[in-house]
């Protein structure tokens, strides 16, 4: 295998020797040296990322680029091989109350014996704590959250009788219930109707205008520039991250989608074919 050396002599990469950078608490999400592997197949490599506060941030990349994995790794839902992710300067387990998570809609069974209001009320479960049932005050907040996403009239409908867009709004309302500062959303725009898409965009803008930070996994390149202030282009590693206007360039997209990762992919392939 060829090395990247041009002069013919071996090039040694600089070792990670610099001390851990200190993150001031106003950085909603700071990721350093994050690597994630599923059964030794690397999915994310050496992710370094600082998400600025109050921005509407899109995570964009091809299928299998590790977009959802990045969010799940930040939420401690999957083990990290190395590195760390800090939320407002502290590990996630100390900052849970400041974070709301919107999972992919397909990740749950919608033929479940609950109605829309029941699902939204789940956003209050942590606040309620062990054994305490959803009370009148939290039910009222859940109704308000449903109102904010425009489907208060469907509160008592069983969730399988909601359209895909309405189901997505239920998930957003549940996140709103948590009254968080950082929102991590996994494909909220996947397979929703145009009205829902607009409602979600309006909601995101409002959150952002209130100083909240939203990190949104997104796959529709056509809408990236109109929706997001800031983007993260990702394909197993961070290709580029920054304000949309400077970052969403043909060159960066080529790097993200155009298969310029030959060496990484070869390494991943080699690991995959090695018997465990």
């Amino acid at each position, binding site marked *: 295998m060829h090395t990247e050396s041009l002069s013919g002599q071996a090039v040694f990469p600089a070792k990670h020797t610099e001390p851990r950078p200190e993150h001031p608490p106003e950085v909603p999400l700071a990721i350093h040296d994050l690597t994630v592997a599923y059964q030794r197949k690397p999915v994310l490599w050496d992710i370094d990322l600082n998400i600025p506060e109050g921005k509407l941030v899109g995570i964009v990349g091809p299928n299998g680029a590790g977009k959802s994995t990045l969010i*799940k790794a930040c*939420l*401690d*839902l999957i083990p990290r091989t190395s590195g760390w992710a800090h939320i407002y300067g502290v590990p996630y*387990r100390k900052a*849970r109350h400041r*974070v709301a*998570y919107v*999972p992919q809609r397909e*990740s*749950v*069974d919608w033929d*479940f*014996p*609950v*109605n829309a209001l*029941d*699902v939204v009320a*789940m956003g209050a*479960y*942590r606040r*309620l704590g*062990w*054994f*305490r*049932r*959803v009370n009148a005050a939290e039910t009222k907040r859940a109704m308000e959250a449903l109102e904010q996403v425009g489907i208060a009239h469907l509160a008592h409908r*069983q969730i399988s009788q909601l359209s895909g867009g309405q189901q997505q709004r239920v998930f957003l309302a*549940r996140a709103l219930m948590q009254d968080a500062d950082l929102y991590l959303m996994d494909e909220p725009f996947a397979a929703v109707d145009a009205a829902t898409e607009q409602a979600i965009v309006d909601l995101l803008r409002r959150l952002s205008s209130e100083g909240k930070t939203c990190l949104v996994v997104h796959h529709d390149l056509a809408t990236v520039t109109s929706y997001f202030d800031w983007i993260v282009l990702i394909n197993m590693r961070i290709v580029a991250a920054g304000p949309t206007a400077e970052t969403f360039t043909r060159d960066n997209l080529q790097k993200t989608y155009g298969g310029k990762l030959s060496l990484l992919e070869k390494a991943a392939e080699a690991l995959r074919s090695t018997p465990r």
Partner: protein
Amino acid sequence: MPDLSDILEVLLLQNYNTRLVVLSTTLLGIAAGLVGSFLLLRKRSLMGDALSHATLPGIAIAFAVMISLGGDGKSLPALLLGATISGVAGIATMLLIRNTTKLRDDVAMGFVLSVFFGVGVASLRMVQTLPGASAAGLESFIYGKTAGMVQSDFLLIALVAAVASLVSILFLKEFLILCFDDGYAAAQGWPTIFLDVLLLGLVTAVTVIGLQSVGLILVIAFLITPPTAARFWTQRLLPMLLISALIGGASGWLGAVISALTPQLPAGAVIVLVAAALFLISMLFAPTRGVLPRILSQAALRRKEDRQHFLRAVYEILEDQAGEGPVANRSFPYEALFAKRSWTPSQLRGILRIACREDHLEPTPPGRLRLSEPGFGEAARVTRNHRLWETYLIQYADVAPGHVDRDADMVEHILGAELVRELEVKLGGPLPDQTVPPSPHLVGDR
């Protein structure tokens, strides 16, 4: 054959010999209904099956240990302790297989289920040949048997069933978020592994106390059937839990009674068959999700559609007859209906029969039809709603006039009075009553 007084005596717990047994299976059924609901919603039914089959080696080994210690080997708590340990070992083996190989869950579960059960059957045979052993009763753990029960055994079963029921109600909210969305629950900070272990612990407890009466092969059916049946009656968790507990309790009670009256039938099978009967009733007749109510409401909607199509066709025929003049209720040839819609003659005969029954038609000479006064009014109303909806689709939904008739067809049958009023307002103020707007596309042009 037991006579009526025998039946009543057992049913109402007046018979001393069967009272404890009937009470224990009833309590067991309630616990199984509650715990089984969460097992079902967590989609772990097969794991429960593997667990129950994996209890058999433990029963045999516990028996052997007790014999070797000089006892008679029939202490229920000791046998159930053995069952618990080997059941948990079975689950642990399954998790080990799953986490160290790439085998799928169902393969790991099938493997544990069959291997542990095989070991159990073999070791049961072996302990029966031990000197001084009389293992005649042990086979009843496979199929279940409502033999007489000593009070201490009953107390053990009742206590475990009560605790399992209470815990599943206490952890209702926590189990709900775990079963619905475990990733979200974990992100909120709920200890999902602990909750899963707790749930599996409840399933183990109910399985083990069900071994004696229901048997290890059928106990999974006792866990799964009541909640599946309950799901047909409701769309929410708490009612589902209560109905499931009710169905479980009723099957345990009735099943034990029937089995006490007909001792040749294995109790486990009878209990599970009662639960299955309740399931069948729920599946067919439950108003919320049952099969029959759904078929009936679909048939009612189809009849309504047929009636509206017929009335609108007649109104359009009358419009054609009237030409430029006002539409009046006259008689028209039967054949004209076929030009309006693709009915088969037998379909149309059925529709006409219903129209006669609803007094929409008046008696006429053969070959001709005439609407009654109420029928004519209804035809005007139906046509008006259809045209309002068509106009709305064209003006607001950008539907091409060529497609509008079909689209309107799909919706107009379910238009409520309120929606019609809304349509009128949208389309420029209420129209004078009974005025039918002209069709926005050529009538009969389809």
